[in-house]
């Protein structure tokens, strides 16, 4: 048990070190892709909280990334600091996410998906049509990258570290949240809301919280997205982003802490690796995802989970057999 624990910690340290050191040799484009992975992981972690842990379907996560991105774009291009934009985006997305959670108190599953889909479309229309605020289809360009403790992060590598550091902080916060009684209540909400309610768990409050916190993380991702691309227009925040994020969560392993990391890696990096196939990469990608979901509906981490629990069951039955044999020997 302790050996496995050391192995896990060692593996974690190696991965983190690699994420810090290896990209030092990357070119501009490589760093952009990796930064995008970090940003999308944050957004997917938010959706994983709402969908994976609390079991509430949402097709609006992309809209919250958009709200965060526009908040950052508008505020920083008017000379305000990014950290201030981050605060505004979190509060704004938390509040809107909370309100969007209300339909979830009445409808579930595909009905809820439709409600959130409608919100997603509404947000897109606001981004596109409210020229006075968002500059419409022309978008907002020349979004500045922030200075951190006096260091400019204009260049790709420093800004990648901003994204990676943010991912680290968000990961710790989410880790804390899902280990807390709140995380347990979210799982109870997903698994059996009727029993949860009878155990005193205020399912209404936790449902709204799951939506609000998940949406706020979408806002955090958006706040990083704007200075990363340095240009924001409505197109990236169309429904397809919400669907992409949904896919990241499901492919990685919905309800697993590391699911979004893997899912975002596949969604952001795999198309890049398959680029050599030229026009076919989207098709190959689609086939890979379909096969994965047929083989393991619980995603990549679901395969690992199944493997571990099978081994545990085998070990336990072996132990029982030994205990039984001993009983038979002793009269």
């Amino acid at each position, binding site marked *: 048990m302790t050996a496995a624990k050391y192995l896990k910690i060692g593996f974690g340290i190696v991965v983190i070190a690699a994420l810090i050191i290896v990209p030092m040799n990357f070119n501009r484009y490589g760093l952009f892709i990796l930064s995008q992975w970090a940003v999308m992981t944050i957004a997917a972690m938010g959706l994983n909280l709402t969908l994976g842990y609390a079991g509430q379907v949402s097709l609006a996560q992309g809209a919250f990334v958009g709200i965060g991105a526009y908040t950052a774009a508008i505020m920083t291009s008017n000379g305000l600091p990014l950290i201030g934009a981050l605060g505004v985006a979190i509060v704004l997305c938390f509040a809107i996410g909370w309100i969007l959670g209300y339909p979830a108190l009445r409808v579930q599953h595909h009905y809820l998906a439709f409600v959130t889909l409608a919100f997603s479309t509404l947000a897109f229309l606001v981004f596109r049509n409210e020229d006075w605020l968002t500059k419409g289809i022309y978008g907002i360009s020349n979004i500045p990258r922030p200075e951190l403790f006096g260091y400019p992060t204009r260049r790709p590598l420093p800004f990648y570290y901003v994204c990676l550091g943010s991912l680290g902080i968000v990961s710790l916060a989410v880790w804390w*949240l899902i*280990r*807390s*009684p*709140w995380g*347990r*209540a979210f*799982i*109870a909400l997903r*698994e*059996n809301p*009727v*029993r949860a*309610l*009878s*155990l*005193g*768990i*205020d*399912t209404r*409050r936790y449902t709204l919280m799951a939506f609000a916190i998940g949406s706020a993380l979408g806002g955090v991702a958006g706040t990083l997205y704007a200075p990363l691309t340095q240009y924001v227009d409505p197109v990236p925040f169309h429904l397809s982003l919400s669907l992409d994020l949904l896919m990241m969560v499901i492919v990685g392993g919905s309800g697993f802490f590391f699911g979004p990391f893997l899912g975002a890696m596949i969604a952001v990096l795999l198309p890049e690796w398959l680029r050599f196939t030229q026009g076919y990469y989207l098709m190959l990608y689609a086939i890979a995802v379909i096969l994965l979901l047929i083989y393991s509906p619980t995603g990549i981490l679901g395969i690992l989970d199944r493997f571990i*629990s099978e081994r545990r*069951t085998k070990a336990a039955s072996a132990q029982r057999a030994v205990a039984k044999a001993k009983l038979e020997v002793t009269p």
Partner: protein
Amino acid sequence: MSVVLEVSNIRKSFGGINAVNGVSFDVQEGEILGLIGPNGCGKSTLFNCILGQLTPSAGEVKVDGKVVTGMRPSDLNGLGVSRTFQLLQVFPKLSVRENLILAGQEHQGNMLSRLIGPSDAGLTEAANQMIGFFKLDHLANEPAGGLSYGQQKLLDAAMAFMGGPRLVLLDEPAGGVNLTMLADLKDRLAAINREKRATFVVIEHNMEFVMSLCTRVMVMAEGKVLAVGRPDEIRANPAVIEAYLGH
């Protein structure tokens, strides 16, 4: 002795069917009231009306003198009313200990302290005690879904006691539990009743279990109360024999 639960004239109809048709009864503090009757006589519907899973069409429910009719189950649980369901309702992916911590956590602190406080809400010790009390020690870290049916049933009952309830409504706790485990379960319920002064209402079809555990038994038939009395009185009641117990 005070009245813990007061049910007056509860009615619940689904379409044209009167599932519960004017049921009234009281439960005294520390009492174990058995609730028996043929399948479909309205026992579980009555439970659901008392506990807020269903809103009764008419009637009133009081807990410790306070009207709680139609109150949400989570708020009712906050007042010290707990329950089990007829079908198993444990959380299969959480371990036995986690299930118990979950069952008690909302009785600890407030929303904020449950977010920033310790991950076990300070309940590991209490959960371990409950695990010991229900003899589930060797299974504490197993996912609840991996337990046998009888063990899950024990866990299900144990969960109802984690919040230190005043009143517990148990819906068929003995259903599907083997004889050895059944004796354990009865023994544990009696012990909690004695030591914690917890009040129980128990729906059960196992007559031996009901008659030996309960201080008073209420018989329902076709949505109404047929008879109430001590176990020996109920056994001898001709109407009950006719409707339910058989000769």
